[in-house]
């Protein structure tokens, strides 16, 4: 493995790569998990200087192939070749020695270490006596982070970072090794438009350097923007591949889902009911300041902003995870105090956290127990849980959200990333709240299921649920919300309604650029 400084310097070319010549090729790859055939005889080719998009529904086997390519899983059959020679990756180390690096969908980082340590763990720059050269590590980390457009202090402790910044650290970590193949498993899912466009620039740079890039995403606009080729998986099988120039969005979706999907947002027009929630002057010493709004029955209120705008931090305070320094909340005109999530839940306010891995699922518990965890008082009688009831509650909500699982008895940890998210959303909808806060509700969810989530959301709003939706996806925000609040640096920067809800004003308000004079 090469030292990191070289990786950073790699921009000015290791010109061995010839575009158009096959760099890495997988063929006939199969992988079976107990009871699930995750991949059967799929193939995938990567070319230097080109971006190959890998698309497919949740559970199609995309992350599984990434894990095979990085030596985390071993395939049951099939071959991997690099430059025409067969290679084997019995360990993660072998894959990284072969020049493959990946940003995984679920980033594995160390909470108690600093940003720089996380980036360089396992290959820290060594100084005299073979000891870690901390000063250089920090310098290198800083320039790596700058390269991806992140403003994160390399000395900060990881546990103090929000999910988007963690993700940027994971990206920096992947780029800290000098690799020929860069894999990105849903790299933009946690990011807002600013970081995303920096990531696109980075992808362009990597392309120019002759790296072969595998890019996994559920967002079609970005696939069409940056990819040169595509490969589609469906239910663990190869459903098609080719160059982007020869394919339309509709064709891709059909290959993926087997049918065409209506991508028009299914927002129903609902007559808004009376006010349910009112928040005024919510303040926090460091994260947000004087947030106030009201929410009516049947309303979907969007929250937009850049990473670090304080949206999730505010929602966490509202849900009782952290304490605000000031501010009042009232529900149906009644002032309430929320000191813990339990208080919020009993007032009918629930929060679907953004970081489903850390804050959502309990790995080791089966799917249905995860779903019913906050609803146990409803599924039990005289203090004893009734399993049949529990099961039917879980089934009702997971099937509405299009969950793909072998059985509800299965451990959530074995579900694909997108399906785990559906479990978490189902878990909170099952509490039948009066106000639901959804933090990035469709992050990592495939296009077909996304429509199912939106439809369900809209239906619930129509039945009187009040929804707060934090989202960084502009089409989703504009398509689903009745009203949008834009936050910037912990404050409300703008509130947009009706005509004012358009992409330009959203982006302007989030970035703090004044409206152009009309």
């Amino acid at each position, binding site marked *: 493995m090469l030292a990191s400084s070289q990786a950073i310097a790699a921009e000015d070319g290791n010109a061995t790569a010839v575009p158009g010549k096959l760099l890495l090729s997988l063929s006939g790859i199969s992988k079976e998990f*107990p009871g699930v055939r995750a991949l059967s005889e799929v193939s995938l080719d990567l070319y230097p200087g080109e971006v190959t998009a890998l698309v497919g529904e949740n559970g199609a086997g995309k992350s599984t192939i990434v894990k095979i390519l990085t030596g*985390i899983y071993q395939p049951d059959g099939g071959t991997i070749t690099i430059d025409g020679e067969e290679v084997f990756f019995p360990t993660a180390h072998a894959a990284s020695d072969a020049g493959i690096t990946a940003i995984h969908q679920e980033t594995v980082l160390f909470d108690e270490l600093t940003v720089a340590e996380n980036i360089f763990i396992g290959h820290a720059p060594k100084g005299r006596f073979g000891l870690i050269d901390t000063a250089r590590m920090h310098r290198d980390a800083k320039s790596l982070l700058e390269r991806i457009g992140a403003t994160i202090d390399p000395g900060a402790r990881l546990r103090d970072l929000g999910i988007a910044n963690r993700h940027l650290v994971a990206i920096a970590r992947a780029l800290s090794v000098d690799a020929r193949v860069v894999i990105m498993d849903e790299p933009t899912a946690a990011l807002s438009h600013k970081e995303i466009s920096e990531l696109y620039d980075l992808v362009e740079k990597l392309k120019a350097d002759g790296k072969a890039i595998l890019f996994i995403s559920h967002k079609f606009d970005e696939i069409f923007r940056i990819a040169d080729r595509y490969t589609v998986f469906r239910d663990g099988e190869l459903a098609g591949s080719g160059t982007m120039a020869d394919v339309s969005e509709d064709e891709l979706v059909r290959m993926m889902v087997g049918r065409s999907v209506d991508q028009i947002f299914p927002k129903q027009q609902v007559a808004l009911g009376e006010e349910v929630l009112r928040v005024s002057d919510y303040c926090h010493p460091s994260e947000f300041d004087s947030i106030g709004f009201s929410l009516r029955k049947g309303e979907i209120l969007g929250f937009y902003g850049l990473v670090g705008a304080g949206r999730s931090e505010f929602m966490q305070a509202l849900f009782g995870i952290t304490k605000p320094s000031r501010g009042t909340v009232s529900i149906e005109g009644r002032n309430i105090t929320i000191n*813990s*999530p339990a208080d919020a839940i009993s007032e009918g306010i629930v929060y679907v956290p953004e970081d489903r891995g850390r804050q959502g699922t309990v790995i080791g518990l089966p799917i249905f127990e995860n779903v019913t965890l906050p609803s146990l008082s409803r599924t039990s009688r005289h*203090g004893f*849980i009734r399993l049949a009831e529990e099961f039917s509650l879980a089934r009702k909500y997971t099937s509405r959200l299009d969950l793909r699982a072998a059985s509800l*008895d299965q*451990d959530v940890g074995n579900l694909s990333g997108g399906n785990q998210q559906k479990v978490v959303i189902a878990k909170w909808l099952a509490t039948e709240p009066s106000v639901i806060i959804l933090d990035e509700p469709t992050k990592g969810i495939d296009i077909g299921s996304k429509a199912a989530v939106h439809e369900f959301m809209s239906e619930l709003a129509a039945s009187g649920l009040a929804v707060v939706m934090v989202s960084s996806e502009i089409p989703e925000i504009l398509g689903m919300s009745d009203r949008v609040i834009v936050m910037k640096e912990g404050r409300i920067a703008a509130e947009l309604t009706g005509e004012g809800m358009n992409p330009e004003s959203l982006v302007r308000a989030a970035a703090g650029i004044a409206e152009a004079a009309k």
Partner: protein
Amino acid sequence: MIQNAVKSREAILALAILAMTGLIATRFPGFIRPANLANVFNDTAPLIILALGQMVVILTRCIDLSVAANLALTGMIVATINTVAPDIPIGLIIAIAISLGALLGAFNGILVWKLDIPPIVVTLGTMTIYRGIIFLVSEGQWINAHEMSEPFKHFPRATIAGLPVLSWIAILCITLFAVIVARTPLGRAFFAVGGNPNAAVYTGIDVGFTRFMAYVFAGALSGLTGYLWVARYAVAYVDIAGGFELEVVAACVIGGVSIAGGIGSVAGAVLGALFLGVVKNALPVINISPFWQLAISGSAIIIAIAFNARAQRQKGRVILKTAEHAT
């Protein structure tokens, strides 16, 4: 899938116990006489009861090293009460033992919950404190058989339907815990808190309180066992059940309860305890020095942990298949 792994792990442990018993029986047929088996069970009852409490504590990612000291302290106090007031009925004695044990457990729980001290440190401390208090209570004196009242000593040994009361109490505890763990919101919370404390907070579960409750359960069972122990052996002194806490933890680990929290079952804890019980009772029979018992328990623990690690791998994290390709 994990649950299947756990179930099969329990099945394997049960088979191991059966095989071991069978092996001993080939040389000493007397060992599998029903009366002797009942005896082994009765002998293991205290370990089973304590393992149940320890299991719920470990499920929440904590540990309780003070269970044996709690047992000894509660035992000493109820024995003392019995010597001064021999007429107090056994029912009341048991109630006192359980409440006292629960109180000592609650003390652990409060320290873990409110002061946020690591569980191992807290219970290592209270273990010494509780033993110290026994010394203060007893002034280092023993309470012997002749000082205890007849009903006090007799109760755990009385037989109902062929089994001693001690065994029945263990069976009752097993049933009770099986229900609590599988069918109550609190039982579910134990798993959630150990499986992902962060997510548990977001679910509205009070992580600290859940841990506190686990300690109260473990304490209550220790207190109950405290009475049963001094009554059965008809003696109370500072060092009774010294080091027993490690055997209790061992029973849990052998039974597949994950020290990392979130994984475990009542059946596993009980089987783990029975495994140790069979080993302990069989060794004298087949004429092997009791010192071997430690070595055997130790090996069983390592095998169990290695086995758990393998079971996790089978889940699909890393498949060690293509070794032939590796080179």
